């Protein structure tokens, strides 16, 4: 066991590192029995070059003295020393360590024991080794070279990994470092050539030495220009010309050596590149674009290293960026709107046909006598509710239709309002739409009743709820002149909107009780109103001009002649025909599509 000099704890004799403190124990590596010689001077460390020199000296001595070599390799050092004990001085013998003296003695004893047989064997082995000595030396030299190359690459790899994440170090792009790794000498020399093309060559090494550290960026840019000028040149300059190498001169660039490659100054970039280049350099993507140019040369693909081809992703990114920059300021492309094509003509033909039919019917076809329709149950219920009103009762008329529906709504509403006015029922107008203010005036005019002010209830749904809940007529929340909704015997809604009808039914209906809401609506709301009537939430309703005519007749009023019935019927017929035509065309198209798919399947 040996003791660690750092922590003083025991370790195995063969340990090279302390298992307790982890520090190095190489200095304590000892051969058993050699402890007594620890204080003696150590043997000088034998380097590889010394080892090779020893081999060659041994060969020379063998050739001169014709002595059989004992062995080759490191043991030959000891063997040669052992074979020439007479050459050692007594002082050397005294200085030799005790273990070495023991080994020498043992070797002498074994040599004596081996006798003649051993000597013959050694001579045969020596002759054999002499034949292969050259090959062994060559192998050894190659081995050493490989070790050195691997070590150099590992160092470079470690340096790169330490710089991982950063695009460049000291302004040197990653691709340039790779190029330098692959062709370090040639590129440096090429940089020098590019830097001072007209200076004498003798000054180049000095200039390279004088380059400051901050000039590394400049070198990188110059190297970029070298690569841009043509990868062939870069490769050629990286590999020194045989003539120049033989003369011991630095390699020359392509055009200087008289090569057929184009000169470096010759522009090889596209016309757009100078415009984009400042932007790309500003964005720090010059290396990617340079790599792009590097790869785009077809002749270079064979000579370039595979490392450079790994920059494909960077090339694609640079290409995308270049496209974006190129498109900058040009505006967005027009949106892909579906082309109407023949469908627009179909629409025009159908619309024009409908218009022509209606115009022809209105102009040329005489008015038909109004048929005696039987009113539906809701309309009858509304008529009963209206007839139940007495003189002096208050009816709130809520006008909420838009201008587009005013023609239909006036035909429905005007006879009813006229009938109520004739019976002495107090009408009060209210609207929740700003447009209702002037539309209600038109309605009064169409109904031939005295004009009166229309109150405006703001707030929409919230306003309706407020009006339904507030019993205080003097409240500022209600419009001026409007009483509490409970004071009205009937609230007559003139509606063309489903949402507005639901507002009144949902917000005011539950607070007013059943039978207080009556509706005069446009025909599009007939489907919506029926469930509410069935649920008992409406006193009744009339939807559409046709039902309005019947209701007017039931109230003893003359229906408005604003809408010719014939035209209405013609319009409905046209729509039915168009729908049937559309159904047939669609079915035919689907059938054709199925037939086309079947053969493919």
């Amino acid at each position: 066991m040996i003791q660690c000099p750092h922590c003083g704890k025991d370790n195995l004799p063969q340990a090279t590192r302390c298992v307790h403190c982890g520090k190095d124990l190489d200095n304590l590596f000892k051969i058993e029995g050699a402890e007594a010689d620890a204080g003696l001077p150590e043997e000088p460390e034998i380097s590889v070059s010394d080892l090779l020199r020893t081999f060659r000296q041994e060969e020379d001595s063998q050739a001169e003295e014709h002595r059989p070599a004992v062995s080759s390799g490191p043991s030959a050092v000891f063997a040669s020393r052992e074979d020439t004990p007479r050459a050692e001085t007594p002082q050397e013998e005294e200085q030799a360590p005790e273990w070495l003296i023991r080994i020498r003695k043992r070797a002498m004893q074994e040599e004596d024991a081996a006798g003649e047989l051993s000597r013959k064997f050694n001579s045969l082995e020596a002759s054999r080794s002499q034949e292969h000595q050259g090959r062994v030396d060559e192998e050894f030299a190659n081995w050493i070279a490989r070790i050195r190359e691997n070590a150099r690459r590992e160092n470079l790899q470690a340096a790169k990994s330490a710089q991982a994440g950063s695009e460049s170090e000291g302004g040197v792009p990653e691709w340039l470092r790779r190029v330098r790794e692959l062709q370090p000498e040639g590129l440096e020399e090429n940089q020098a050539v590019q830097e001072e093309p007209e200076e004498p060559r003798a000054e180049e090494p000095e200039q390279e030495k004088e380059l400051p550290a901050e000039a590394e960026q400049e070198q990188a840019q110059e190297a970029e220009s070298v690569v841009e000028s043509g990868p062939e040149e870069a490769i050629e300059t990286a590999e020194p010309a045989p003539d120049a190498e033989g003369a011991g001169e630095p390699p020359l660039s392509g055009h200087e050596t008289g090569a057929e490659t184009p000169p470096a100054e010759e522009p090889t970039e596209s016309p757009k590149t100078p415009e984009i280049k400042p932007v790309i350099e500003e964005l720090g993507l010059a290396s990617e674009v340079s790599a792009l140019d590097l790869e785009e040369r077809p002749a270079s693909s064979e000579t370039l290293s595979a490392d450079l081809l790994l920059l494909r992703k960077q090339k694609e990114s640079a290409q995308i960026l270049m496209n974006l920059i190129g498109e900058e300021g040009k505006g967005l492309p027009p949106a892909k709107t579906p082309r109407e094509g023949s469908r627009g003509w179909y629409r025009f033909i159908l619309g024009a046909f409908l218009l022509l039919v209606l115009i022809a019917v209105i102009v040329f076809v005489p008015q038909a006598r109004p048929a005696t329709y039987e009113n539906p149950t809701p309309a009858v219920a509304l008529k009963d509710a209206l007839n139940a009103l007495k003189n002096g009762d208050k009816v709130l008329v809520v006008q909420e239709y838009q201008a587009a529906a005013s023609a239909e709504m006036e035909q429905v509403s005007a006879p009813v309002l006229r009938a109520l006015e004739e019976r002495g029922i107090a009408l009060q107008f209210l609207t929740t739409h700003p447009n209702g203010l002037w539309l209600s005036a038109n309605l009064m005019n169409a109904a031939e009743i005295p004009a009166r002010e229309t109150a405006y209830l703001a707030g929409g749904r919230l306003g309706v709820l407020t009006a339904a809940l507030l019993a205080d007529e003097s409240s500022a929340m209600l419009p001026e002149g409007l009483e509490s909704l409970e004071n009205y015997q009937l609230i007559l809604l003139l509606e063309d909107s489903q949402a507005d009808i639901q507002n009144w039914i949902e917000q005011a209906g539950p607070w007013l009780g059943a039978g207080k809401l009556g509706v005069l609506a446009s025909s599009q709301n007939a489907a919506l109103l029926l469930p509410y009537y069935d649920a008992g939430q409406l006193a009744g309703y009339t939807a559409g001009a046709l039902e309005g005519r019947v209701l007017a007749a039931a109230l003893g009023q003359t229906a408005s002649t604003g809408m010719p019935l014939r035209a209405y019927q013609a319009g409905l017929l046209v729509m039915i025909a168009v729908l049937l035509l559309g159904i047939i065309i669609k079915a035919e198209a689907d059938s054709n599509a199925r037939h086309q798919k079947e053969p493919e399947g």
Partner: protein
Amino acid sequence: MNPMDIVLGFIGIALSVMIFSYLLGDNFFFRVALYILVGVSAGYGAAVLLLKVIIPRLIEPLKESGTDAFWLGLVPLALCLLLALMLVPRTVRAGTLPLSFLVGAAAAVGIAGISRGTLAPQLLAVVNRFSPELLLENSAADWGGIVEAFFILFGVISVLFYFHHRLSRKGAGTQRPLLVEGISDVGQVFLGISFGMLFVGFYSAALTALIARIVWLKDFILALLAG
């Protein structure tokens, strides 16, 4: 006809033709007419709100300092100022208070109204269809009423099945039993009939408006010709 009626009549004809030009596709004249409609409606609405709401409800109470109306008027004034701060980009967040108040109040009122004014009454109406008073007529079964009640109930259930089945199909993509599929298909038929009726209603209203417009044009031209 007085000159003003003639001018307004021609303006009306021009606008009508511009709207009809949509038959040729979306074009400049149609858009001009549309912008005129929207602009006039917005301007008229703003004027009405100013005269009917802002001045009487907000400005007038603030003139009576010390009264209850004055103190109550400060609340909408503060909310209006917060809302106006949304015009400045840095103080956009100040407008979230009145907006959230409005949206929250409208949503609460809407949900309460739907549940109280539509959902509950409609469900009760379906159930009340099976009331013995309605199904018995002179102490005899009113088979028409009974069939109608079951038909309505079946329609409600099948439509609910359709919506539920549609949602579950979107979610899991599992195959439902054949009975459920059949009921769901019947619900789809009910929905189709309802949408068809809505379409007829919309078309009927549009047709009425179109006929009324053509009749007005005819009357105007005849009046012009008559001098």
